[in-house]
Structures are given as C-alpha cells and as structure tokens.
C-alpha cells in the first residue's frame, strides 16, 4: 500500500520532469537541453532538501507546524551573507572564495540552530504557538537587520553582491550547484543511517532516552543536517517561507504512516513535484509574470491560517 503510493509519486515526478524538460522545445536543442537539465537538477536539490529538513525538524520538535524556514533559518543565512559582505566589502570574493562564504554561513546557521534548539528545549512544556511567534519575529528581525546592513554598505559594493544574494527559481545561483549537491549527498548518507532513530525520536525525549537512544548527540547531528540543507536551498534559490509546511502536511495526509523511511522519501518527492508544477505553470501559463515563491507563499499562508483555525487544544 505505502510502497504503491510512493511508486505513484515517483511516476508523477518523472512525468513532471519530462514535461519540464521537453515542453515547448525550440529548434536549438544543444543550447536548451543542458540549460534545462541544470534547472531540473537545481530544483531537485532544493526541493528535496526543504522537504527532508522540514520533516526532520518537525520530528525533533514533535509538532506539525514548525519548519526551519518559519523559525527564521533562511533569514539567518541571508543575514550572515550580508555580514560577510559588510565586513569585507567588494573584496568579499577575493578574500573568501564564494564557496568559503557559503560554508561560513552554514557554520553560523549551525550555531543558530543550536540556539533555537535551546529555546525549544527550554520551552518544552510551553506551547508551540509561542515558539512559532518567536520564530516569525526572529525572521522579521533578521530580515530588517539585513536590510539595515545593506543600506549601510556602499552602493557599489552592494550591486556586486546583489545578484548572488537574491536568488530565486528564475534566477538560480547555479555556481554553487556542484558543492551543494556534494553536501546534500553527504547529508542524505548520514541521514540514512539515522532514519531508524527518527521513529524513536518522534516518541519524545523521555521515551527516546528510556529506549536507549543517545538523545542529545542524535539531535545535534540532525540539526547539523538541517542547517546544511537549509543553507543549500537558500543559497541556490533564496527563501521560500511556506514550502516546507505545505509539503510536510501534504505528506502526512497522503501517507498514513509514522515510519520516517517512507515519510522522508515521500516528502522529498512531493516537494519536487510541487515546485516543478509551480515553476512549469509560471513559465508556460503565466509567462514568467510571477515567481513561484509568491504562489507557494500564498497557498502556504492560506493553508497555515486554516491549520490554526482548525486546531483545538
């Protein structure tokens, strides 16, 4: 049953990729196909990291409405990129190679996620909505801080980095693609080893410790994976606030299971399908008149309001 449902997802994804690759091909195949292939690859990398990291984050925090992006992870990444440019000015790309910049920001994200974890941990008996509000305000605060620095930065220096900082699905930062793919594969490999523990972590801290899982160590490794994945996706296409919450909840609805082996796979697949469909609609139906993140934010936001209105104590 579950395997068949995952099979359906795989087929759906393949159809989406085929549509995306071959719909409306012009005559200049040797130019278009490689270009499209890179975009397909980027979308797969980004969408699967967002789906994967959202599920892990929700398992650790034991709820279904928190996601890394809602807790402000993406804004932190952009803030650190801005700080680096602020410190080094237009020498940023000489002093630090672009990938070095990326890795440093990832490291900073890890520190941030430990901080977030401490807040969550301290609030364990507290309610989830308070955390959510804290996350949203943190996100806004970091965004404001970034704009604050961006205004202070010399306009000439700023224009140099602007393109690298504000990536989107239409303006992907493909320079980092190979590095991002490498990191993602390593994270998947580590994640694969921890999948069986995730099922236990979902039971909660006390149960997990009772069952002999080294809880703190486990959570730290998982937070590292989340930080890497969010960095990867934010660096490649910029922040997409509501994608994680949308796809994770679709996954819970679609697959009535608690086994992370299936959940993680399905969520990554669904996430890819959603983004491919969105991007396809935008390129061929809306004629690039809008950005996929806007549509996702709209649908995700409405869905989120629905979740809040629906939930009871």
């Amino acid at each position, binding site marked *: 049953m579950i395997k068949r449902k995952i099979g359906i997802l795989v087929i759906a994804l393949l159809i989406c990729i085929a549509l995306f690759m071959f719909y409306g091909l012009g005559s200049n195949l040797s130019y278009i196909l490689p270009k499209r292939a890179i975009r397909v690859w980027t979308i797969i990398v980004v969408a699967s990291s967002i789906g994967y990291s959202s599920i892990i984050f929700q398992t650790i925090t034991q709820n279904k409405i928190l996601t890394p992006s809602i807790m402000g992870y993406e804004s932190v990444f952009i803030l650190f990129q801005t700080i680096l440019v602020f410190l080094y000015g237009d020498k940023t790309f000489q002093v630090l190679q672009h990938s070095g910049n990326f890795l440093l920001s990832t490291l900073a994200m890890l520190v941030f996620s430990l901080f977030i974890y401490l807040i969550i941990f301290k609030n364990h008996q507290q309610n989830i909505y308070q955390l959510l509000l804290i996350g949203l305000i943190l996100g806004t605060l970091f*965004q404001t801080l970034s*704009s604050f620095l961006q205004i202070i930065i010399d306009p000439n220096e700023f224009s140099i980095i602007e393109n690298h900082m504000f990536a989107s699905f239409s303006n992907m930062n493909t320079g980092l693609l190979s590095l991002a793919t490498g990191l993602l594969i390593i994270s998947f490999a580590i994640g694969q080893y921890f999948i069986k523990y995730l099922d236990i972590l979902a039971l909660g801290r006390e149960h997990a410790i009772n069952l002999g899982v080294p809880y703190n160590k486990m959570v730290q490794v998982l937070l590292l994976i989340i930080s890497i994945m969010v960095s990867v996706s934010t660096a490649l296409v910029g922040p997409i606030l509501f994608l994680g919450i949308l796809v994770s909840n679709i996954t819970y609805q679609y697959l009535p299971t608690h086994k992370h082996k299936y959940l993680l796979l399905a969520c990554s697949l669904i996430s890819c399908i959603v983004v491919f469909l969105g991007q396809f609609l935008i390129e061929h139906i809306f004629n690039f008149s809008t950005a996929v993140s806007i549509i996702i934010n709209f649908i995700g936001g409405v869905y989120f*309001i629905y979740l*809040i209105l629906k*939930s009871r104590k």
Partner: protein
Amino acid sequence: MNKFLLFSLLIAFSFISLMVGSKSIAINELFSMDEEQFLVFTASRIPRTLSLLITGAGISVAGFIMQQIAQNKFVSPTTAGTLDAAKMGILFALIFLPDVGLFGKISFALVFCFIASLIFILLIKRIQIKDIVIVPLLGIMFGNVLSAIATYFAIKYNIVQNVEGWLMGDFSGILQGQYETLYLIIPIVAISYLFAYQFTLIGMGESFSKNLGVSYNTFLYIGLLLVSLTVSASVVTVGVIPFLGLIIPNLVRMYKGDNLRKNLPFIAMYGALFLLVSDIFGRIIIAPYEIPIGLMVGVIGGLIFFYLIFRRQK
C-alpha cells in the same frame, strides 16, 4: 515619569530634531540663519519634526485601539496585516488609477485597511484555542498572504520587484507641501480620547459592553475606521513603521496600569518621543547619510517585542 517631565523631554528632543541633519543649524544660529539655513529649516526641518510627532502619537494610539478591539495586547497594525493592506491599497491605486493624487491613494489604502481589519476580526472570532499568541500569529500570516497577493500584482504590472522592502518608513523625504495629509491624524487622536471609555468597554467583550449600554458594533466600526485612517495616512506619507503601535501601548501599560483614558496621553507622548529619538539616531549614525526610520524602529521594536513575549512566561 510624570506628564510634565515627558512633555519637556518632547520639547527638548523636538529642538534637537530641528537642528540635527546633514546641514546642521546650531542653537545660537536659530535667530540669525543665512538664507540657505532658513530654507532647510522651514522646508524640511519643521515639517519633518512635526510629522515625526504626529505619526508617533497617531500610530501608537491606533495600536492601542486595535488591542482593545481585538482584546489582545499583541495586536497592532504590524501584527494584524493592516500595514500590508495599506501597501496593497496604494499599489492598486498605482495600477488602476495611476494619475490619482495623494488623497486618492489614501482613500484606496483606507478602504483596503478597513476591509482587511474586518476580515481579521472575523478570523479572530473563529479561533478555537484561547491563547494570547495565536492572534498575532494569525495576523502575521494574514499579512503574509496579503503581501503575496500584492507582490503578484506588483510584478505583473512591473511596478516594484519586491513589495517587502517597498514603502520602508523614512522621514528624509518629508518636505513642506507633501506631509500635510498627516494632519488628519490629529483629530483622530482627539476622537480616540473622547471615546476612551467606550473602547475600554468593548475591550471587555461583546456581551459585557452591551450589558453596560454601549453599542458594540458601532464602536467596533468607529475604532476600525480610526485605525485605518491613521495607518493609511501615515503609510502613504512616510511609509511603514513596524512594531510602533505594538510596543508603546504595552510598555506604557506595564508601568501605568490599565486606566485607559489616563494612559492615552502617555501613549501618544511616548510614541512621539520614541519616534523622534529613533529618527535623530538614524540621522547621526551614518551621517551625512541616513538610516530610514523603518529599519531603526524595526530592529529596536523587534527586540522589545521579544522581551514582551518572554516576559509573559515568567
């Protein structure tokens, strides 16, 4: 701090605000300004200081009224989608009636703010979990949805690429002849003071206020209209100033208790003072350039909001 001291501080900082800027005017020069200084003084400094005072007082009072209506102290134009609705209204005015003047933009913003506030109030009433943070959470999400719609149209009509950073609050562009719409806010603050008791009562709930003979719906609409007017006038003229309407009423309430009519003058004065001081700092930090007030207040206000949330736990 008593009223007198607060008022003196307000006067003192107003004088500083009149003097600080890329063209500085020393206090002993006030009565012997050369032509250029005089021009800067009358065309820019006086309008700027006045609009800081009016906006600070107006937005803080508006936040306070919203908190009464929503019966939640974390509600404000920032956390209820009102600011996003105003931006959306201005955007639609630009799209559909590009030649419309300042007043037309305000009317558009007003209509959008009012409708958005009504929807927000309706949404709040459907919440099943009674937790104080749910309401601002819902409001922020509501604002995100509105801003996604606005961004969609903005990109489609190629007006602004990014609605998020659009209309950042900034007083540096305030000049004589362009800020007078802000005077709308003065009667609004006066009316709010007049109706303070009624707002206190509807803050206690629908049935309670009806029992005491106050028409709940009438004052709900009056309140929302006052808030929408203030927000529209200020967003059109100076841009978005986040968190101001949230933190000032809460801070005043922390130290002054809950006597709302007594608090209103304090809320207005502290709001004006806070905005004035933030703007003066914004002018000094990277002089001769300026940091927009939206950013200054966004950072300071965000931190204070955190403090308010965490304080609740203890």
